[in-house]
């Protein structure tokens, strides 16, 4: 870290930054907010999960690991719904992540070489990412609306296909959510891949061309391996994003039909803000957070590797 400056010499402070307390003064505003809104809530959340939080009471009863035990005891409603929605979320991740990686790579490859209107195309593919999830959700709910949605109108017009009630059909309700999500977020990974493609040294391709390598061979042996770090980064960040599914399901299907598209984030908020079971929800947050931490740990290491590489 911080290789750009020499390590401070203890006991002898240099005057350039003024009195010794000056740096701390700059750090103070952020540090106060950091303690109040990041450090404290972590402890407070754990504390809440170990008590039975009653919003109307001043004294909260200690219950130990009760709320965690429920989550691993088959039979309790919390167990049933937590793991059911966890499964839903995992299914969404499996459905969406590969699509978000490969379609992003496809778009980036289409835009790799100069072509008329390239920047316009890039802007169009990126455009949906700036929309709020509610906007995106309402658009795609309308697109997939049973009978009157544009998708069903088109299915009606195309021979050999017929209308289908996507939004209210178990399993099929994922299609509007996944399609909407791809439309909404593929632009991020496309930009990542675009930057990475541009950074591949041209000489590799020239050498391959001299060796007579075809398009597929060039992709397989140059492009794809060179993109490895970006693919890994995109894979990790997209997985984290997909696991936190909330808005798309909330707006497009409201978690239905029969909770089959309810994500774990939706269930946690339901437990907290509809059932007012804050302690139970806090315990779920901690458990779910720990699972996410396994993935963010990878991301963190990748970021640090970049950091170490880039800083002089």
């Amino acid at each position, binding site marked *: 870290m911080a290789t750009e400056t020499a390590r*401070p010499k203890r006991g002898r402070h240099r005057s350039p930054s003024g009195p010794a307390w000056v740096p701390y003064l700059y750090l103070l505003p952020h*540090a106060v907010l950091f303690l109040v809104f990041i450090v404290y809530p972590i402890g407070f959340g754990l504390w809440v999960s170990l008590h039975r939080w009653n919003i109307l009471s001043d004294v909260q009863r200690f219950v130990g690991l009760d709320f965690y035990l429920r989550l691993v005891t088959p039979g309790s409603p919390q167990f049933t719904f937590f793991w059911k929605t966890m499964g839903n979320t995992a299914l969404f991740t499996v459905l969406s992540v590969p699509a978000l990686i490969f379609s992003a790579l496809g778009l980036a490859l289409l835009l790799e070489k100069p072509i008329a209107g390239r920047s316009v195309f890039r802007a169009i593919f990126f455009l949906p990412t700036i929309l709020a999830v509610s906007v995106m959700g309402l658009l795609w709910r309308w697109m997939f609306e049973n009978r009157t949605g544009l998708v069903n109108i088109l299915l009606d017009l195309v021979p050999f296909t017929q209308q289908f009630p996507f939004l209210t059909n178990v399993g099929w309700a994922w299609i509007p959510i996944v399609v909407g999500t791809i*439309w909404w977020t593929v632009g991020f990974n496309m930009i990542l891949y675009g930057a990475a493609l*541009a950074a591949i040294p041209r000489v590799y391709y020239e050498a391959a061309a001299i060796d007579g390598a075809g398009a597929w061979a060039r992709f397989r042996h140059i492009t794809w391996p060179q993109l490895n770090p970006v693919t890994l980064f995109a894979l990790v960040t997209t997985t984290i994003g997909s696991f936190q599914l909330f808005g798309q399901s909330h707006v497009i299907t409201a978690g239905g039909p029969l909770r089959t598209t309810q994500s774990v*984030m939706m269930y946690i908020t339901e437990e907290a803000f509809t059932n007012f079971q804050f302690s139970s929800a806090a315990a779920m947050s901690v458990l779910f957070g720990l699972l996410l931490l396994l993935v963010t740990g990878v991301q963190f290491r990748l970021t640090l590797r970049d950091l170490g590489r880039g800083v002089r």
Partner: protein
Amino acid sequence: MIVRSTVNRARPTIPFADGDAADTGPSVVGRRAGPPRWLLLAPRFLTLVVLALLFLLPIYWMVSTSLKSEAATVAQPVQWWPHEPTLENYRTILESPNAPFLRWAWNSLFSSSAFALGSVVLAVLTAYPLSRMRFRGRDTWFWVILSSMMIPGVIFLIPHYLMMIRFDWIDTYHALIWPGLPAAFGVFLMRQFFVSIPREIEEAARLDGANSLQILVRILLPFLTAPMATLALFQFMASWNNYVWPLFVVHGDMQTLPVAITSFSSRYWTAYGKLMAGTAIASIPILIAFLFAQRYFIRGMSLTGLKDE
């Protein structure tokens, strides 16, 4: 990611853009003989056109639906464009007493601006000593801040909410602004840029007796206007588009626009003319901003990588 993209930006990101790429690009093979370049590119161009139209279709359909009467939105056969375009839906929802769109828009605008401004100020003040001063505990503190980036947001949801109740901040702008401010991301980003400014630049000022604040404001900040603008734009968008948190901490008149259009949607569940008018109101300002500043949006994104909410 951040660093790598910065490096990419320093050299031309798109080598040979719009020039004669065939000289050095992968298409060097087959250059000598074979069909002309435009014919080779035609399939790719057509693919891109089709995909672009598909991407724009939902947005076209939103605008088109919003300009139809409710009867026309479900008319058989389908009206590919509004046969009798009308602004009736917009008028209805803007005049509706229980859908204060302008108030919601103001809530979003104010809280997102305050959040963006606060993030930039905090990031600059914090990154400055962490990158350009020497003091005890500096590296440790940077690591503490950096480590907080790893913590999944879901961990904070319940404790933050209960804190908002205790602070009596439910249904206030405070709830929308303060809890997210100390996030490490801005500090991390600004520090990268502080580090990239050569140290010699401030030496002269220091010899003239300038203090650290003067050095920051007069010498360093002019180098940082672009990253600060990028960070501000990014944080503004993040706050504007935030969904889970505002959904639960602000209600009624205090809602942010993107959240409000969904609660508004439960009233007009299938009245898609009005729903799409509301959606258009919520998204068109952002779409227009994107039209003019798409370069900055895209640059900001490649600068930051995918920031998960």
